[in-house]
């Protein structure tokens, strides 16, 4: 095994040296031109994708050779168990990836930390490890793709992507990536045998292989099917998002309309005697809006940055970068790069740490429960608003007609400005959200002479199967009392089965695919505890049952003539996992060739075998 390991390392040593040098130069250049450690996640993900592509490319080059029948025979026909041959090749590839991917990344992080004075947290030292795990996952997936000989097996690539696409803390993400590595390793090992086309022999082996394949096919069917359906709608000119005139009463119309139109539409169905009068007033009013600015807050220790982590203080000539280890902003002089101290809850020089990793919306600094405004001259940090956990801020102050509003996951808070601009804001009123925060698209605000009309426009997640989305109009009187004056259900822009596709396609696969998101703390802003969501519509439930039954029938048909036990096992699995399981069955279980007839028609009748 050791010899095979060294042989494989030797095979790629020149390539590895070149690739490592190129990677190091590329990273160093990136670090000089930008600051990848503090860039937004959209930039950082490029490095992850490049690492994964490098791992995939290595597997393709490596196994494009080995998969040839004669080379495969040379590799596998030796007095070594296949596990050890696989281990030798895997470890050699891992060593190469450490050298090409992780080592240059670590050197660059060390270089930034020791020679530039830029802020480097402990979390940043996990980045090389993450890049390595991404590359290794892709290598294992590539190994399986190259060896199993079935093009449709590309779906397994979705699994590491599914596991990596979260902005949780670095340690938790390492665990998630390791789960991906284990799944991919099991899959690759299943194809790493002399007869590569043979399905895994044991039931356990099949089950281990089936998990990533089912997840992969689920993603393919869900996203591919969704894209195909929407493209089809566009071709026929009936896609609500692609039409000039969206369907009446639906979510698309709601978000495309201005606030006054939305309010008029809701008030038209109101039984409140004042509704008609308000409706007429709308043309004269300036209707503003309050938007949920985000769905999540950064998680401490997350390598990927949700938002920018730096802000310039021009008056003090300081560039502040958030340091997650100390939960303070770390200052550097803009021109000399000299250290400029720390910036805490009280401002410059205050060492009280922030209670959570802050976001920087506009001129504000916002943690999960506190909103601050830096005072440019004094360097102090003014607390503008604060809420108690579990209530969470969703954005900074938004002004409608000079009245500031603050939106949390539980309520909309309206403030009154004091005469003194330095004086703290006074709460004028606050209104509980009449629906789940996650489904809220926006709030239209119309200020009247005797109060305010607020239209809460829900339906953002209707396309993902959210049930019971409504538009609710509240009237808040001068004393701050809120009263519901109109409500209407939002019409579905898309067919019900399209909106609930993720569920009826395979409820179990959906739960599996959502599991990492549920287990990992991603800093998501939770909905306020309220009434449970209405049950799924009967049509969707029926579709789920039909999909499961059809899948089971298809599995049984596919395995006709096979042992009853195998047929039953696959049919039961298809019943539980739905269509993705049938696709997996197609890939894993090759149909046995029909048993050849007795050799009657064998060529020459001439001489009998002697």
């Amino acid at each position, binding site marked *: 095994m050791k*010899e*095979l390991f060294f*042989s494989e390392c*030797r*095979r790629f040593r020149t390539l590895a040296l070149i690739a490592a040098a190129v990677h190091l130069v590329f990273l160093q250049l990136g670090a000089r031109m930008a600051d990848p450690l503090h860039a937004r996640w959209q930039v950082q993900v490029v490095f992850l994708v490049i690492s994964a592509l490098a791992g995939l490319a290595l597997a393709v080059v490596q196994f494009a050779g080995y998969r*040839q*029948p*004669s*080379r*495969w*025979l*040379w590799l*596998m*026909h*030796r*007095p*070594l*168990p296949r596990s050890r041959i696989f281990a030798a090749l895997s470890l050699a590839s891992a060593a190469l990836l450490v050298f090409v991917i992780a080592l240059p990344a670590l050197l660059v992080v060390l270089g930034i930390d020791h020679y530039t004075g830029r802020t480097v947290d402990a979390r940043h030292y996990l980045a090389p490890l993450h890049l390595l795990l991404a590359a290794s996952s892709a290598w294992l997936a590539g190994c399986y793709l190259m060896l199993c000989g079935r093009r449709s097996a590309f779906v397994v690539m979705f699994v590491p992507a599914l596991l990596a696409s979260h902005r949780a803390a670095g340690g938790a993400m390492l665990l998630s990536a390791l789960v991906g590595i284990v799944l991919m390793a099991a899959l690759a090992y299943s194809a790493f045998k*002399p*007869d590569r*086309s*043979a399905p895994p022999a044991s039931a356990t082996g099949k089950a281990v292989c089936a998990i990533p394949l089912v997840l992969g096919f689920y993603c393919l069917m869900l996203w591919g099917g969704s894209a195909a359906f929407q493209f089809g709608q566009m071709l026929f000119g009936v896609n609500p998002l692609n039409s000039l005139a969206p369907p009446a009463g639906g979510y698309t119309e709601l978000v495309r309309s201005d606030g006054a139109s939305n309010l008029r539409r809701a008030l038209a169905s109101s039984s409140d005697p004042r509704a008609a009068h308000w409706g007429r007033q709308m043309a004269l009013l300036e209707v503003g809006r309050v938007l949920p600015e985000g769905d999540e807050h950064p998680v401490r220790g997350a390598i990927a940055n949700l938002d920018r982590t730096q802000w310039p203080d021009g008056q003090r000539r300081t560039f502040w970068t958030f340091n997650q280890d100390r939960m303070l902003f770390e200052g550097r002089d803009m021109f000399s790069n000299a250290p400029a101290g720390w910036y805490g809850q009280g401002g410059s020089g205050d060492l009280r740490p922030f209670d959570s990793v802050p976001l920087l919306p506009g001129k504000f600094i916002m943690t999960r429960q506190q909103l601050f405004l830096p005072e440019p001259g004094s360097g102090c940090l003014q607390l503008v608003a604060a809420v108690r956990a579990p209530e969470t801020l969703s954005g900074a102050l938004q002004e409608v007609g000079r009245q500031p509003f603050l939106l949390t996951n539980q309520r909309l808070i309206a403030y009154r400005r004091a005469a003194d601009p330095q004086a703290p804001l006074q709460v004028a009123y606050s209104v509980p959200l009449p629906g789940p925060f996650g489904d809220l698209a926006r709030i239209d605000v119309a200020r009247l002479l005797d109060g305010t009309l607020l239209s809460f426009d829900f339906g953002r997640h209707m396309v993902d199967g959210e049930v019971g989305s409504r538009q609710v109009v509240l009237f808040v009187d001068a004393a701050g009392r809120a009263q519901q004056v109109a409500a209407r259900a939002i019409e579905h822009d898309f067919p019900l089965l399209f909106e609930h596709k993720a569920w009826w396609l395979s409820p179990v696969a959906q739960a599996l695919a959502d599991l990492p998101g549920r287990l990992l703390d991603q800093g998501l802003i939770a909905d306020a505890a309220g009434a449970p969501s209405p049950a799924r519509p009967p049509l969707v439930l029926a579709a789920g049952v039909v999909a499961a039954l059809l899948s089971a029938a298809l599995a049984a048909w596919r395995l006709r003539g096979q042992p009853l036990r195998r047929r039953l096992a696959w049919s039961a699995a298809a019943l539980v996992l739905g269509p993705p399981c049938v696709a997996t069955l197609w890939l894993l279980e090759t149909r*046995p*060739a029909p*048993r*050849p007839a*007795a*050799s009657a028609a*064998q*060529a*020459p009748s*001439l*001489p009998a*075998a*002697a």
Partner: protein
Amino acid sequence: MNDLVIRTDDLCLSYKGKLALDHLNLHLPRGGVHAIVGANGAGKSTLFRVLLGFAAADAGSAQVLGCDSRLLTPALRARIGFVNEEHTLPGWMRVDELATMQRRLYPAWHEARYREVLANFNVGDRQRIAELSRGERAGVSLALALAQGPELLILDEPTLGLDVVAKRAFLEALLQTSLGDGATIVYCSHQMEEIERVADNLVILERGVLRHMSPPGDFCERVSLWIADFPFRQPDAARLDGVLEMRVIDGLTHLVVFDSGVDFGHRLRLLGARTAQQMPVSLDRAVNGFLARGHAGAPKLSAAA
């Protein structure tokens, strides 16, 4: 101890509906050199893939050294050597590195034999595999396989694509090397002169079916060439029992016949032959005649020149 090194019973394997092995019953006894011949597509390489566990049969069974070919253990693989036509070796390694790797893998490694075989080829230890010519690669491949001390050595068209010199060196190395008692070589080739030189037993496969198995000499004895002179109308002699091939050359009818006796001459005379002469044939001619019957590219008997 099982007396058969290879045993297949009713072995069937099809690729995309085409039978590559068709109820093959092959029982090869231990010891000696067994030559397997057959036209392209006869199923020789497929048979080796099944025997080494690299392809699963659709039906039937295959055993190597007494073990089910699907369940070959690493220890059993150590007892089976394999040299293929491409002489696939890792091009990035040096000859000595490769030998060191194999030496550690195979407990029965025979260093003297490795050196002895390699001496037939102009190969340096420090040379990279990728720098070797095809003939030199074949030599290294053979040296490595023989040095493993295999009980069963399978050579799948090892001299394909080699020039005359390399081919001669390869065969001489093979013939000069004495494997252990009971060692068996399965030699697959299209080159009949090689078969004639090395084989103790001849196996003819045709379209996945075993057609014949006997020592090459015995086979040659059973095939003979009859030259008949038909002064008048050419009879349809190809329909006679045992005729493998018929050609008319310079007015004389040449018939390659299997298992014909003196009776065959009488039959030819009864058909109007003025003279009928029996002659021995070379192995090449005998095998070619034997395979020509079933080969897709074979000329029809009646259309033979």
